[in-house]
Each structure stands twice: as structure tokens, then as C-alpha cells.
């Protein structure tokens, strides 16, 4: 399978799975089993998923499965986190994070 076909497969299966999860309770008037333990687990999806998506990119750069620590990224991510917590503003977080990354890369290169 070519990468383009694989990517379309990813799109279609992700779409069907996502649509099913968000539509069936509405279609069935909420008459789907939703045990308390499942609700307790799914309640934490946003924080857990977002953290898992932030942390590796904030600590490492990777080529395939070889990970190496990237101090400039870590510094920039800490600064961006502070801005995000203080402002709750997406644009400010992006600007602070990218600005800090460029500064930190430049400073670390200058220090040798």
C-alpha cells in the first residue's frame, strides 16, 4: 500500500470510529451502556492525551526510534507552559514558545 493510500485509510477509519463514539449516544437517546468506571476513566482523557502529546516533543528530537534530549525545546516548553497557564491564550503561547525556542537555540549554539 502506498503512503497516500495508508493515509486515506487512516482518515476513513479514524472518521468512522470518531463519528460512532460521538453520535451513537445522541442517535439512541443516550440509551447506551456507560458504566461509572468508564466515565471515571474517560473524564481524564483530555489532560492525559494532551500531556502525552506535549512531553516527548518538549524533551526530545527523534529520528525514527532514536531519541535525543533537546535542551532548547525543554527551555522553550517551560516558558510556553508558564505563558499558557497565565494567559490561557493560544496565540500568546505559540508566540512565546516559538520565540523562546529560537532564542534558546541561538544561545546554546553561542555557548558552544
Amino acid at each position: 500500500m502506498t503512503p497516500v493510500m495508508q493515509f486515506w485509510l487512516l482518515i476513513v477509519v479514524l472518521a468512522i470510529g470518531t463519528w460512532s463514539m460521538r453520535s451513537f449516544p445522541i442517535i439512541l437517546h443516550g440509551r447506551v451502556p456507560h458504566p461509572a468506571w468508564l466515565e471515571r476513566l474517560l473524564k481524564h482523557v483530555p489532560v492525559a492525551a494532551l500531556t502525552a502529546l506535549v512531553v516527548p516533543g518538549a524533551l526530545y528530537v527523534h529520528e525514527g526510534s532514536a531519541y535525543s534530549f533537546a535542551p532548547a525545546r525543554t527551555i522553550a516548553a517551560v516558558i510556553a507552559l508558564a505563558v499558557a497557564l497565565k494567559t490561557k491564550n493560544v496565540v500568546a503561547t505559540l508566540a512565546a514558545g516559538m520565540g523562546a525556542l529560537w532564542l534558546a537555540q541561538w544561545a546554546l549554539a553561542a555557548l558552544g
Partner: protein
Amino acid sequence: MRHSVAMPRTRHSLIEGAKGVAPILIGVIPFGLVAGAAVRQAGFGLAEAMGMSVIVFAGASQIAATTLFASGAPLWVALGTALIINARMFIYSVSIAPLLAEAPRWLRPILGYMLVDQNYASTMTEGRHRDDVDIIGYYAGGGIALWTVWQIASIAGALLGPFIPASWGLEFAVPLVFLAMLAPAMKDRTAVGVAIVTGIAAAVFVTLLPLQSGLIVAIITGMAFGAWTDRPRPGEDR
């Protein structure tokens, strides 16, 4: 309110629903730009970028699936991670279903497709307490506004993506947009605990487990920690 006589109720509700999500629309634009650009930077075309944003229409999972796939993760890891991210919508759907119970049968699959974080929040916290609106119209109005802005931002990102020089390090924008979403979600001590546990698990497992499957393990670890923290204790009703 002053429109309610001149304007049919459905139209009024749609407009009010769009107004309800208006403050969040500005924040949606950078996500859409990143989502669109990520597909192009992964080496795919405009059709794939639009396919992602129109057919899937769930921002965080789109960006995660795209960047994982692009960095060489196998299909099942990209798909599994993205589906876990969207599993939260099942609970949104269960809790919003009673409000949408009057919707005609043909409309319900479309209402499900429109269910995203921002629209859910606006309907549950604001719309349902207003007696000047019809809640289905309010929800649909918010959904249409979010959908339109998301698609425009995605197209813009997909068109601009190929022109962004690699030296800008824009792949770092992906963790940054997730960070911007994460900050407002850390509302209480349990949430901070979940973030710390997941963060440590992600830092460790991503380097240990093959093909970025460590992400899935980290997310499940964090969820389990949160559920364990919230467990019903003896002597409590829940």
C-alpha cells in the same frame, strides 16, 4: 431577545448558538492552521488535508494522527492514539443526548458529527439555561460556526504549509498548540496529578517502547491514575 418577535425562533437560536462560541473561534484558528500545515509537511496534498479536516473534524486527533504517521509510527499506533483522544466525546454525547432528544431522526447523525469540545461546553454551560432559544438550534448554530472556521483555517494552513521553511522549526508548534489546550484543562489537583503521571510515563515509555506505542501506554496510565484518584471510597455515595 429583541429579535425574537421579528425573527423566527430557529433562526434566532442558530445565531445565538454561533454567538455562544464566538469568543472561542479566534483560538480555533491556530489549531486549524497547524492541522492543515501538518498534513502538507507530512508530504501529502491539499485533498488529504481537506479529507482530514472535513471527514474527521476533530482537531487534536487529526494533528496527532498526522504527525505520528509522518514520523514513521505504524498505522495502528497513529489510529489507536487518535481514537483514544476522541473517546472523551462518547461521554459528551451521553450527557448532551437528553438535550437533543427532540431532534428528528435524520438530523441526529449530523448533530453527532458536530460534537466538539467547544460546542459541547457552550451548549451545556450557557445554551441550556436560556429560555429564549431552542436548544437544538443553539447547538447546531455553534456547530456550524466552529465547522466553518475550522475548515477555512485548515485550508489556509494547507495552502501555506509547503512555504514554511524547515529552519523555523515549526514542528515544535504541534506540542505548543497542545500545551495551549492543556493549560485550561488543568483545573484541579487530580488534573495536575494526571498530567504529572502521564508526563513521566510519556518521557520514559516513548524512549523504551517501539514505534511510539509508548504514547498510548502513557495516556492509559494517566487515565487509570485519574480514575483511581476519583474512585468511590467506602462511606461515600459515589
